[in-house]
């Protein structure tokens, strides 16, 4: 039975890097009403940046992660200010198509800069190694991921519930016109929310690379995972994204163990069933 517990814990650690990318996606949708196809590409950019700063240039690990986030924030700002902003009055289809254009550009840009082969940065020495859990060696790095995921969850909760910025963002999300009438600088809120979302994606990428890899195709793969999670949890819901990440992470950990052939298929079955039966998401009560 130990394998069940152990694999469950592996699943939780997988869930945490999924949580980081899904949190950004769902926040952006919740406030801006935009489905950002390029969110997976921001994850990819975060991964490559961490690889470059830490793996190639030898910067300290923490600084490398922070620099990756900064790059993603700038990219996010350009995407929102320079492009998306001009499409809010149009059908959502155009926003999807625009962000798909970003996917194409960023995927190729990564290939041009870093080449077509995948890169794996080393695990920092202080996070290397393993300790015994359920009689098996559990990597310290995965433990670190779980801790980061939980901390980010608490941080986001505090950010949205306890700060002035969080109140403004929630007000904007629930009624854009009213917030505007009350003097909220809505365009500024949109930009900051998009940047926070981009940084979350990049954080997922930067911290996820040592156990996944940085490769040109990961953006397209990750965005699909994030779609599944945010749909299961309810588009726009942070709590839902957290729970959805746990469901998908744990399912895929057991899936690779017990039913590797159907794992991918089942994720999409769950996504479809939720969309058909409870489009507002499994973990959202109402509205």
């Amino acid at each position, binding site marked *: 039975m130990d394998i069940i517990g152990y694999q469950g814990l592996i699943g939780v650690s997988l869930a945490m890097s999924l949580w980081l990318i899904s949190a950004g996606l769902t926040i952006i949708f919740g406030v801006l009403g935009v489905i950002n196809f390029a969110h997976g590409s921001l994850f990819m950019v975060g991964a490559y940046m961490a690889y470059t700063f830490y793996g190639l240039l030898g910067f300290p690990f923490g600084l490398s992660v922070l620099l990756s986030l900064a790059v993603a924030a700038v990219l996010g700002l350009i995407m929102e200010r320079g492009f998306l902003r001009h499409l809010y009055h*149009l059908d959502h289809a155009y926003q999807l198509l625009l962000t798909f254009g970003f996917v194409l*550009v960023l995927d190729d840009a990564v290939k041009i800069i870093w080449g077509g082969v995948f890169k794996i940065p080393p695990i920092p020495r202080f996070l290397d190694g393993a300790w015994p859990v359920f009689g098996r060696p559990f990597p310290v790095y995965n433990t670190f991921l779980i801790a980061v995921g939980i901390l980010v969850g608490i941080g986001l909760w505090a950010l949205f519930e306890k700060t002035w910025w969080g109140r403004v963002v929630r007000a904007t999300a629930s009624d854009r016109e009213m917030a505007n009438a009350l003097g909220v600088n809505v365009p500024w809120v949109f930009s900051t929310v998009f940047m926070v979302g981009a940084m979350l994606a990049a954080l997922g990428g930067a911290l996820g690379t040592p156990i996944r890899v940085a490769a040109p195709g990961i953006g397209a793969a990750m965005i699909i995972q994030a779609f599944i999670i945010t749909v299961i949890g309810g588009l726009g819901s942070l709590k839902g994204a957290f729970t959805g990440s746990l469901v998908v992470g744990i399912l895929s950990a057991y899936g690779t163990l017990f039913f590797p052939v159907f794992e991918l298929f089942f994720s999409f079955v769950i996504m479809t069933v939720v969309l058909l039966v409870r489009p507002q998401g499994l973990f959202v009560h109402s509205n």
Partner: protein
Amino acid sequence: MMHARHAHLMSGPLTTALVAALIALPLLAGNYLTYLTIQILILSLFALGFNLLFGYTGLLSFGQAGFYAVGAYICAKILLVQPSLLLGVGGGTVAAAVVAVLLGALSVRHTRIYFSMLTLAFGMMIYSVAWKWRDVTGGDDGLVGIPRAPLKILGTASISLSTIEHYYYFVLVVVLLGVFFMYRLVNSPFGLSLQAIRDGETRAPFVGMSVTTHRLLAFTIAGLYAGLAGALLPPLENTVTPVMAHWTTSADPILATLLGGIYVFSGPIVGGALFIIIKDLIVRVTVHWSIVLGTVVIILVMGFRGGVAGIVAGMVARPRAAPAPAVASK
């Protein structure tokens, strides 16, 4: 919310000239150009079906590659057992239409983002079946050695299509028929109803239209066209691979349609041609074709939402007519 009526870019003489040029093409051009034109024809057909759903009905599907792949795989399976082209292409098309009617019945319960997500999930479900069901689909290797089977018409002798010119003419006839039927369809009362539903979903039922039935029909026809386009591919390439069903393949007809123009009947055809030609030209210079494509997509979405055919149609037909009709309230 007002949408301009779909403009007709193709006038009679222009269409005749284009068809004549297409018929003469293999006599004048080499094998490579003929092959490229087959690809254009197939993508145009694929995009034309997609745009019935997107431009005419207002539903953006991200799962059309699923039906494309069903058409291709079923056609390939048939040809591997029974080398008869009509049987293979027909079987693939029918199979795709059947899958489309089943998945469509579920998909059209939603619109907008939820519809896009749902079709994305269905398409990826088909992808994961193609990728993982190794015994039937060949897994990630796909199916290989698919013959370019002869064309057997009931009773009469069979026509060999082993040369690329012969196969080109077969594809040309199929695609022209497809274009003709689509043209009739969008100008029929049914086609006009679809546009009415797109423009005023809440009003349509008051004049007695069943919104769901219309959407389901459009979805099925789009799936059928995707399946037909997919079924034309295995005899050309002699192979099918799971990537045909991937969501990134679903983007091809979307981008082609966007390039050509969403609100012009010939948009997807013009876009299909531009897509393949631009890709071919760029790939000669650099492997990084997608960065160019992405840039083009961004420019089109930002500033030229009518597409190339839309711009031309606007200049030719009504210089003052406001295009960019794709405005819908959020």
